[in-house]
């Protein structure tokens, strides 16, 4: 005769409500772990997907994800000439916030090195990659933009031609992929008056430089857009991504590029670690600590519930002891109920979470490792909660039935 099952059937309403409550609590623990994992994944997603071997960034900076990195696009040509380099491409990223259909929309723009990179590697769930050099965009679905929808960015209008899944920036904004030229146009868009003032300032500045004094025709170029006048304009790309030929020693190529005075170079893994230790570290640690607290609180609440469940049955346990029941009968009753409660709560947490997590504003990634870890944690909590209850049950004097 299974006493635990019978007790649960008798107190089904209370048991169910307790299981749902604990399930929701465990779901939050699971969700917090998922958010933690999501931040980590989102942060490194672009680096992983771009699949480059080396990242060339502005000298003495830690790359575009950690701080502002501005690099001359000419570095791309220089990198191409290094022995062992298969290809080099420009990379631009910046975040804009615009009004779209009456609502604010934050877009993390990534420039693809058109025409070499048309975004064929993107995880596109509908539509297609970029197929023309201008005014097309592949947007992540979290931006809420549909295929064919048009978005004004700066002076131009861009049409959404593809939608990706789970392409999020480290800040949690959806990514939009444009060609490098379009990404720069959006980044450096300014009103006419500002452009005129900029050109005048540039002309005055150029007039005083030795370079222009020796070559006066350069002054005429000061009126062109910044990215078209590399000789005197500002460096504009965020980084240059380098892919190596097969079997080429990464360190060797890196050391060659590292010798250039105007750049700093990182391997993809170094760039990944810089990102994890930099911008996302604080958020990660905060959520990590919150998660630890939540697990501790859940453990206390679960243990108390399990202990209270035992206290509720203390008279029956005393009676069983009076009747001569062996310890394992009483321990079995307490343990089975605890593990049933923990197990049902865990299953509820999983299924409720599976339904709710997709609606969270940031990605919640629940991995198998995490599920196994949580199951183990629930089992440990059940054992702790039980041990208190069992200790109490074992200490019950059968005499209590007589009182």
């Amino acid at each position, binding site marked *: *005769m299974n006493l635990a099952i019978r*007790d649960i059937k008798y107190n089904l309403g209370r048991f169910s409500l307790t299981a749902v409550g604990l399930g929701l609590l465990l779901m939050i623990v699971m969700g917090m772990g998922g958010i933690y994992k999501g931040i980590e994944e989102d942060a490194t997603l672009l680096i992983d997907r771009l699949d480059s071997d080396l990242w060339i960034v502005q000298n003495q900076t830690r790359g575009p994800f950690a701080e502002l990195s501005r690099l001359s696009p000419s570095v791309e040509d220089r990198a191409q000439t290094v022995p062992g380099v298969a290809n080099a491409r420009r990379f631009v990223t910046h975040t804009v916030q615009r009004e779209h259909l009456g609502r604010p929309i934050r877009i993390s723009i990534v420039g693809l090195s058109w025409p070499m990179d048309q975004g064929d590697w993107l995880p596109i769930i509908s539509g297609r990659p970029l197929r023309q050099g201008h005014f097309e965009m592949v947007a992540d679905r979290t931006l809420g933009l549909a295929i064919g929808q048009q978005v004004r960015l700066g002076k131009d209008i861009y049409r959404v031609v593809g939608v990706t899944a789970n392409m999020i920036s480290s800040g949690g904004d959806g990514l939009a992929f444009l060609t490098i030229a379009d990404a720069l146009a959006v980044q450096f868009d300014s009103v006419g008056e500002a452009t005129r003032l900029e050109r005048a300032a540039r002309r005055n500045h150029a007039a005083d430089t030795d370079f222009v004094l020796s070559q006066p025709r350069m002054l005429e170029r000061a009126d062109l857009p910044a990215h078209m006048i590399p000789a005197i304009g500002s460096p504009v790309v965020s980084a240059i991504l380098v892919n190596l030929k097969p079997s080429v020693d990464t360190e060797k190529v890196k050391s060659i590029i590292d010798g250039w005075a105007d750049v700093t170079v990182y391997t993809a893994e170094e760039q990944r670690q810089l990102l994890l230790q930099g911008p996302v570290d604080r958020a990660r640690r905060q959520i990590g600590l919150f998660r630890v607290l939540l697990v501790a609180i859940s453990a206390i609440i679960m243990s108390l519930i399990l202990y209270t469940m035992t206290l509720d049955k203390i008279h029956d346990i005393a009676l*069983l002891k009076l*009747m*001569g*029941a062996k310890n394992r009968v009483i321990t079995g009753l307490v343990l089975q109920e605890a593990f049933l409660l923990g197990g049902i709560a865990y299953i509820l947490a999983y299924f409720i979470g599976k339904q709710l997590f997709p609606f969270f504003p940031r990605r919640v990634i629940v991995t198998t490792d995490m599920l196994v870890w949580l199951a183990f944690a629930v089992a440990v909590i059940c054992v702790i909660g039980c041990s208190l209850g069992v200790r109490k049950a074992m200490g019950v004097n*059968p005499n209590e039935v007589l009182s």
Partner: protein
Amino acid sequence: MSSSPRPPAIETIELSKTYGSGNTEVIALRKASMTIERGEVVALLGPSGSGKSTLLSAIGLINPPTSGLIKIDGKVVMDGPKALVDLRRYRRERLGFVFQKSNLIPFLSALENVLISLSISGIEGRPAKRRAMELLDSLGVGDRAKNLPSALSGGQQQRVAVARALANNPSLLLADEPTAALDSKLGRQVMELFQRIGHDNQAGVLVVTHDQRALDVFDRTLYLEDGVLSEHKRTPKTSSVCKPHLDRE
């Protein structure tokens, strides 16, 4: 050659129980000696605080005495506070308990409340169910076997509790004011039930009671006051009592 007589269901020899020490010392039992034979139905009377529950819990192997011997079925099981046998096993196999409240497990049906007692003794399956149903039928609650205690009347609950106590054929049935929660008619029925059980099952029965109206169903009456145990002698009509000290066999 005549066969040796069966040993008494229970025998206590100079059983004493003291709570606390020094200024706070309370003597609950003073050298209480008694014998209950198998098939004998005995009532235990006494005012509140006289030590009835202490005696019952000592005999029930729940609360050890400070000194004295307890013999069950002729075997010494307690020598003062020292247990000489596995008390839990003895409770399981030799003793049955009935309380003031039925103390049925609320989440088990009437049948299951009897079955749990058998299960604890290692009797399961069909034989257990047959035995439990026989007991419930014999006590007139067989038709309520599937009901939870909350669906039974007080009298029915107490009958189920008696069935549970009898499930393992105990040599001694201990009842602590089993009729206190019942009306006089039901109370008498339950007392008569104990009489029948004692005589039919050849079990010793000790019933702690305040109800002197049903004393005629008992073979003997013991009286406990200030921890001193004595034998009641009553006249058939008035049930008036005198209290000579119990003569041990």
